[in-house]
């Protein structure tokens, strides 16, 4: 994982890590706090923080209006997740506990 020091700036992002973050949110019942999201994505804190800032900067994830400690997928995030899930399924085949399809995130 090539990660750089400036928040939200990643030299060469790992699509699997982005995918894990998006998947953790896409399969959750609703907006999530950061710590449970980090646990679901299975990332250490530093990597999680950098990648969360990165996906927020790209507009895939946004803080929930009225509750800044919660984050949720945006429509762009849902589209990105679908793109990654489809692409990885095409490459690796269906994986146990595979991608869960969802529509637009609940607000």
């Amino acid at each position, binding site marked *: *994982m090539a990660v750089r020091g400036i928040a939200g700036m990643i030299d*060469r*992002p*790992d*699509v*699997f*890590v*982005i*995918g*894990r973050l*998006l*998947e*953790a949110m896409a*399969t*959750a*019942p*609703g*907006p*999530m*706090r950061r*710590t*449970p*999201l980090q*646990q*679901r*994505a*299975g*990332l*250490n804190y530093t*990597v999680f923080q950098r990648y969360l800032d990165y996906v927020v900067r*790209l507009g*895939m994830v946004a803080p*929930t209006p009225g*509750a800044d*400690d*919660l*984050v949720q997928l945006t429509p*762009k995030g849902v*589209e*990105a997740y679908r*793109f*990654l*899930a489809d*692409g*990885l*399924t*095409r*490459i*690796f*085949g*269906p*994986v*146990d*506990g*595979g*991608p*869960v399809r969802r529509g637009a995130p*609940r607000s």
Partner: protein
Amino acid sequence: MRGAAPSPPDRARVGGIVAAPRSVLDGAKDLARRSHRLSWICWGFLYAAWGGVVLLTLLALVFPNWSATLEPGGGLGMTSSPPLVDLPLAFAPAIALFCWALRELFASRRAARAAIRGTAANGRAPSAGDVAPGWTQQVVDAQKLLTAAKLETDWSFLPLGIGLLGVDSTVTVALNPILGGPFSNAPYFVVGVGAVAFCMALYFLYRVAESWIGGFQQHLDLQVRAVSALEAEFLWRFAGSPA
């Protein structure tokens, strides 16, 4: 909805993207395990084959089975050879291990093909909280495992060959009385034919092992290229640059 800690059923559902790269390493680990088992079986075959040779030699010394043979000068010579009935008994463990090695070899090839076709069990779904292993690290680990497995499998053919040589020579000695004694040309012919047949069989088996591990290595290379392409397309579409 408040973002509370996920309940156990929700946690269990995470895993598609997490498990995908892990399936690569799981597949390589499975191949490495099979290769290691094959190596043990082949070394076991070597010991069993030469154990059979030693056993037959001891039997021939303790219970000599004399037979008269014609010598080149025209006289009669007496030679002792292991009785033919003892051959299957002495070589039973070696034959069993050889069959087991063949079974393992073909089962490994089937498993590798299933992994390449994507019909194999594709890794466990991890539970939430597992720290994500990086894709690059997974590929590097898988490649290391495959290289080691290939080397181990290649070296497995050495004990297999030496064991087969022992069986071939002992069978030839046991056949001496039938084939006209040690001074006729028939045993050399039998040794030659046997050795050529064993070499061909070994070459065929070596090709099977090559296709098994080489096929998985090619598959891994294709997956790495496909992931790179996916990564570039993803970043182009969603981050506005190909990184």
